[in-house]
């Protein structure tokens, strides 16, 4: 199980392939892989977004991402989990976050992947500052889904 915070742009698909091939114990064990990739849109809350700065609280963010990942591994029978999250300057079309889960069966893989992305969005300390045609603004918090 791995959590990574990255300052620079990354290719989630390449990272997933690289991670999976570096885990020899996984081979033959998993029958399902689920992936969620979150990407920066060029619009939000009615404005065109030219860029976004994602501020975080490094030590706390890492701690809470790792905790969410551990919780998923306790709740569902999964074999492995990879979370990669960006911080810093992003441009539209840049991947922001990637969650990949390997499990014997799809039900656990889907459920764990969904749990990790939903929980990290409300618990991990990240703050979005968007650059729009009206200047820089801090994104307003969204109401919780549940």
């Amino acid at each position, binding site marked *: 199980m791995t959590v990574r915070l990255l300052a620079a742009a990354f290719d989630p698909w390449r990272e997933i392939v690289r991670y999976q091939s570096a885990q020899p114990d996984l081979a033959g064990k998993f029958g399902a892989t689920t992936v969620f990739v979150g990407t920066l849109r060029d619009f939000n809350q009615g404005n065109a977004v030219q860029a976004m700065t994602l501020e975080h*609280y490094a030590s706390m963010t890492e701690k809470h991402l790792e905790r969410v990942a551990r919780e998923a591994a306790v709740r569902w029978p999964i074999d492995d989990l990879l979370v990669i999250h960006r911080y810093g300057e992003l441009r539209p079309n840049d991947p922001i976050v990637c969650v990949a889960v390997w499990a014997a069966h799809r039900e656990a893989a889907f459920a764990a992947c969904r749990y990790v992305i939903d929980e990290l969005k409300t618990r991990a300390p990240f703050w979005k500052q968007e650059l729009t045609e009206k200047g820089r603004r*801090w994104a307003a918090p969204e109401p919780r*889904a549940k």
Partner: protein
Amino acid sequence: MSITVRFFASVRERLGKAQEIIDSAGISNVADVWKQSARTALPDNLLAAVNMEYARPDQPVRDGDEVAFFPPVTGGAP
């Protein structure tokens, strides 16, 4: 004897500082730390953390702790 205080996002911008070390004398909880740093009462809509765990305003603070203040996190729409 000191407490490290950190500020993030709009709170950091409003106060004009990202981090400071304050004397722990006379500090008993999270709200006291904010009062010492910001010279105002702790607003209801701010979040706080003590040693990287979310904390309530009345949570005790001890010498050597790291206390942080920040707005609600903005992970995005579901």
